Protein backbone atom coordinates (compact mmCIF):
# COMPACT_ATOMS: atom_id res chain seq x y z
CA UNK A 1 0.00 0.00 0.00
CA UNK A 2 1.04 3.57 -0.62
CA UNK A 3 2.22 5.50 2.41
CA UNK A 4 -1.01 7.17 3.45
CA UNK A 5 -1.76 7.96 7.05
CA UNK A 6 -4.75 9.60 8.67
CA UNK A 7 -5.08 11.34 11.99
CA UNK A 8 -6.75 11.04 14.31
CA UNK A 9 -7.89 7.45 13.87
CA UNK A 10 -10.81 7.90 16.24
CA UNK A 11 -12.57 11.01 17.44
CA UNK A 12 -15.65 11.75 19.49
CA UNK A 13 -16.92 15.29 19.44
CA UNK A 14 -20.03 17.26 20.23
CA UNK A 15 -22.51 18.84 17.88
CA UNK A 16 -21.50 22.32 16.83
CA UNK A 17 -17.76 21.92 17.35
CA UNK A 18 -15.24 22.26 14.53
CA UNK A 19 -13.29 19.16 13.56
CA UNK A 20 -10.27 18.77 11.28
CA UNK A 21 -9.10 15.45 9.91
CA UNK A 22 -5.65 15.12 8.41
CA UNK A 23 -4.41 12.96 5.57
CA UNK A 24 -0.72 12.62 4.85
CA UNK A 25 0.86 10.80 1.90
CA UNK A 26 4.51 10.22 1.11
CA UNK A 27 4.10 9.16 -2.55
CA UNK A 28 4.06 12.63 -4.10
CA UNK A 29 0.66 11.85 -5.62
CA UNK A 30 -1.04 14.80 -7.27
CA UNK A 31 -4.66 13.73 -6.75
CA UNK A 32 -6.14 13.21 -3.29
CA UNK A 33 -9.67 12.46 -2.13
CA UNK A 34 -11.86 12.45 0.95
CA UNK A 35 -14.70 9.93 1.22
CA UNK A 36 -17.20 9.06 3.86
CA UNK A 37 -18.45 5.52 4.34
CA UNK A 38 -21.84 4.73 5.80
CA UNK A 39 -23.74 1.43 5.89
CA UNK A 40 -25.62 0.83 2.65
CA UNK A 41 -24.00 3.76 0.85
CA UNK A 42 -20.57 2.52 0.00
CA UNK A 43 -17.98 5.26 -0.35
CA UNK A 44 -19.18 8.74 -1.22
CA UNK A 45 -16.83 11.45 -2.42
CA UNK A 46 -16.79 14.59 -0.29
CA UNK A 47 -14.03 16.68 -1.88
CA UNK A 48 -10.98 16.05 -3.96
CA UNK A 49 -7.79 17.85 -4.87
CA UNK A 50 -5.90 17.88 -8.15
CA UNK A 51 -2.90 19.79 -6.85
CA UNK A 52 -1.69 22.20 -4.22
CA UNK A 53 -4.46 24.73 -3.55
CA UNK A 54 -6.61 23.11 -6.25
CA UNK A 55 -9.73 21.48 -4.85
CA UNK A 56 -13.26 20.74 -5.96
CA UNK A 57 -16.51 19.45 -4.53
CA UNK A 58 -17.69 15.89 -4.64
CA UNK A 59 -21.08 14.27 -4.27
CA UNK A 60 -21.64 15.11 -0.58
CA UNK A 61 -19.69 18.31 0.07
CA UNK A 62 -22.24 20.27 2.12
CA UNK A 63 -20.91 20.98 5.61
CA UNK A 64 -17.32 20.16 4.69
CA UNK A 65 -14.34 22.17 3.52
CA UNK A 66 -10.84 21.12 2.52
CA UNK A 67 -7.41 22.60 2.13
CA UNK A 68 -4.22 21.48 0.49
CA UNK A 69 -1.22 23.69 1.18
CA UNK A 70 1.34 20.99 0.47
CA UNK A 71 1.36 18.01 -1.89
CA UNK A 72 1.57 15.57 0.98
CA UNK A 73 -1.22 16.94 3.18
CA UNK A 74 -4.97 17.13 2.58
CA UNK A 75 -7.15 18.43 5.39
CA UNK A 76 -10.88 17.91 5.82
CA UNK A 77 -12.74 20.32 8.10
CA UNK A 78 -16.21 20.07 9.51
CA UNK A 79 -16.92 23.69 10.42
CA UNK A 80 -19.75 22.82 12.81
CA UNK A 81 -20.16 19.09 13.26
CA UNK A 82 -23.63 17.54 13.19
CA UNK A 83 -24.77 14.06 14.16
CA UNK A 84 -25.38 13.26 10.47
CA UNK A 85 -21.63 13.57 9.96
CA UNK A 86 -20.96 10.59 12.20
CA UNK A 87 -19.18 8.26 9.81
CA UNK A 88 -15.93 6.63 8.84
CA UNK A 89 -13.80 8.96 6.75
CA UNK A 90 -11.27 7.67 4.27
CA UNK A 91 -8.60 9.60 2.49
CA UNK A 92 -7.16 8.31 -0.77
CA UNK A 93 -4.52 9.32 -3.27
CA UNK A 94 -4.19 8.40 -6.92
CA UNK A 95 -1.22 6.36 -7.99
CA UNK A 96 -0.45 3.74 -10.59
CA UNK A 97 -0.62 0.00 -10.24
CA UNK A 98 0.59 -2.93 -12.28
CA UNK A 99 2.57 -3.16 -15.47
CA UNK A 100 -0.14 -1.32 -17.41
CA UNK A 101 0.10 1.73 -15.21
CA UNK A 102 -3.54 1.64 -14.12
CA UNK A 103 -4.69 4.70 -12.17
CA UNK A 104 -5.46 3.29 -8.74
CA UNK A 105 -6.77 4.88 -5.61
CA UNK A 106 -4.78 4.03 -2.50
CA UNK A 107 -6.68 4.44 0.73
CA UNK A 108 -5.62 5.46 4.19
CA UNK A 109 -6.68 3.47 7.27
CA UNK A 110 -9.70 5.66 7.97
CA UNK A 111 -10.92 7.90 10.79
CA UNK A 112 -13.96 6.92 12.80
CA UNK A 113 -15.78 10.11 13.80
CA UNK A 114 -18.66 10.19 16.24
CA UNK A 115 -20.64 13.39 16.71
CA UNK A 116 -22.78 13.37 19.84
Amino acid at each position, binding site marked *: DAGITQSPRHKVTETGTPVTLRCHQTENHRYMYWYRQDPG*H*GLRLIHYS*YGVKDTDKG*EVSDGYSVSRSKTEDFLLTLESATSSQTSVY*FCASLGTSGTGGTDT*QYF*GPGTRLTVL
Partner: protein
Amino acid sequence: GQQVMQIPQYQHVQEGEDFTTYCNSSTTLSNIQWYKQRPGGHPVFLIQLVKSGEVKKQKRLTFQFGEAKKNSSLHITATQTTDVGTYFCAVPISGSARQLTFGSGTQLTVLP
Protein backbone atom coordinates in the same frame (compact mmCIF):
# COMPACT_ATOMS: atom_id res chain seq x y z
CA GLY B 1 -24.14 11.86 -11.91
CA GLN B 2 -22.86 8.43 -12.76
CA GLN B 3 -24.44 5.69 -10.70
CA VAL B 4 -23.79 2.02 -10.44
CA MET B 5 -26.02 -0.58 -8.82
CA GLN B 6 -24.36 -3.44 -6.98
CA ILE B 7 -26.10 -6.62 -5.85
CA PRO B 8 -26.52 -8.40 -3.58
CA GLN B 9 -25.91 -6.17 -0.57
CA TYR B 10 -25.12 -9.16 1.65
CA GLN B 11 -24.15 -12.77 0.94
CA HIS B 12 -23.54 -15.58 3.39
CA VAL B 13 -21.92 -18.73 2.03
CA GLN B 14 -20.50 -21.90 3.45
CA GLU B 15 -16.77 -22.25 3.04
CA GLY B 16 -16.12 -23.96 -0.27
CA GLU B 17 -19.19 -22.54 -1.99
CA ASP B 18 -18.94 -20.07 -4.84
CA PHE B 19 -19.85 -16.38 -4.64
CA THR B 20 -20.73 -13.76 -7.22
CA THR B 21 -21.39 -10.03 -6.99
CA TYR B 22 -22.72 -7.92 -9.83
CA CYS B 23 -22.49 -4.28 -10.83
CA ASN B 24 -24.82 -2.67 -13.33
CA SER B 25 -24.77 0.73 -14.98
CA SER B 26 -27.39 2.43 -17.16
CA THR B 27 -24.65 3.97 -19.27
CA THR B 28 -21.66 2.59 -21.11
CA LEU B 29 -18.54 2.57 -18.99
CA SER B 30 -15.00 3.33 -20.07
CA ASN B 31 -13.71 0.97 -17.42
CA ILE B 32 -14.60 -0.55 -14.08
CA GLN B 33 -12.48 -1.23 -11.03
CA TRP B 34 -12.97 -3.65 -8.16
CA TYR B 35 -11.86 -3.13 -4.57
CA LYS B 36 -11.93 -5.32 -1.47
CA GLN B 37 -12.31 -4.07 2.08
CA ARG B 38 -11.62 -6.44 4.94
CA PRO B 39 -13.62 -5.94 8.16
CA GLY B 40 -12.20 -2.93 9.98
CA GLY B 41 -9.87 -2.18 7.09
CA HIS B 42 -9.66 0.10 4.12
CA PRO B 43 -10.51 -0.55 0.47
CA VAL B 44 -7.74 -2.17 -1.54
CA PHE B 45 -7.60 -2.18 -5.33
CA LEU B 46 -8.04 -5.57 -6.96
CA ILE B 47 -8.30 -5.03 -10.70
CA GLN B 48 -9.43 -2.84 -13.58
CA LEU B 49 -11.37 -4.01 -16.63
CA VAL B 50 -11.33 -1.93 -19.80
CA LYS B 51 -12.26 -3.99 -22.84
CA SER B 52 -15.67 -5.22 -23.88
CA GLY B 53 -16.14 -8.85 -22.80
CA GLU B 54 -12.86 -8.84 -20.89
CA VAL B 55 -12.23 -11.64 -18.41
CA LYS B 56 -9.40 -11.53 -15.90
CA LYS B 57 -8.46 -14.02 -13.22
CA GLN B 58 -6.61 -13.70 -9.96
CA LYS B 59 -6.29 -17.18 -8.46
CA ARG B 60 -9.85 -18.07 -7.40
CA LEU B 61 -11.29 -14.67 -8.41
CA THR B 62 -12.72 -14.16 -11.90
CA PHE B 63 -13.68 -10.70 -13.11
CA GLN B 64 -15.84 -10.08 -16.17
CA PHE B 65 -16.80 -6.96 -18.10
CA GLY B 66 -19.97 -7.19 -20.12
CA GLU B 67 -20.03 -7.03 -23.89
CA ALA B 68 -21.93 -3.74 -23.77
CA LYS B 69 -19.60 -2.40 -21.04
CA LYS B 70 -22.57 -1.70 -18.80
CA ASN B 71 -22.13 -4.48 -16.28
CA SER B 72 -19.47 -6.45 -14.51
CA SER B 73 -19.19 -9.36 -12.15
CA LEU B 74 -16.74 -10.75 -9.62
CA HIS B 75 -16.90 -14.49 -9.04
CA ILE B 76 -15.03 -16.32 -6.30
CA THR B 77 -14.65 -20.07 -6.66
CA ALA B 78 -14.57 -22.23 -3.54
CA THR B 79 -14.63 -19.44 -1.00
CA GLN B 80 -12.27 -19.43 1.95
CA THR B 81 -12.50 -17.57 5.24
CA THR B 82 -9.84 -15.21 3.94
CA ASP B 83 -12.34 -13.98 1.33
CA VAL B 84 -14.49 -12.34 4.02
CA GLY B 85 -15.03 -8.65 3.44
CA THR B 86 -16.91 -6.16 1.33
CA TYR B 87 -16.37 -6.02 -2.40
CA PHE B 88 -16.94 -2.76 -4.23
CA CYS B 89 -17.07 -1.92 -7.87
CA ALA B 90 -16.09 1.60 -8.90
CA VAL B 91 -16.61 3.46 -12.15
CA PRO B 92 -15.29 6.79 -13.46
CA ILE B 93 -17.53 9.79 -12.96
CA SER B 94 -18.69 11.07 -16.32
CA GLY B 95 -16.25 13.62 -17.66
CA SER B 96 -13.61 12.95 -15.03
CA ALA B 97 -11.38 9.94 -15.40
CA ARG B 98 -9.75 10.54 -12.04
CA GLN B 99 -12.90 10.52 -9.91
CA LEU B 100 -14.74 7.35 -9.09
CA THR B 101 -18.27 6.49 -8.07
CA PHE B 102 -18.40 3.42 -5.87
CA GLY B 103 -21.14 0.84 -5.75
CA SER B 104 -22.74 0.23 -2.37
CA GLY B 105 -20.74 -2.97 -1.97
CA THR B 106 -21.46 -6.63 -1.32
CA GLN B 107 -20.60 -7.83 2.15
CA LEU B 108 -19.43 -11.44 2.03
CA THR B 109 -19.54 -13.69 5.07
CA VAL B 110 -17.96 -17.11 4.82
CA LEU B 111 -19.16 -19.65 7.35
CA PRO B 112 -16.59 -22.29 8.34
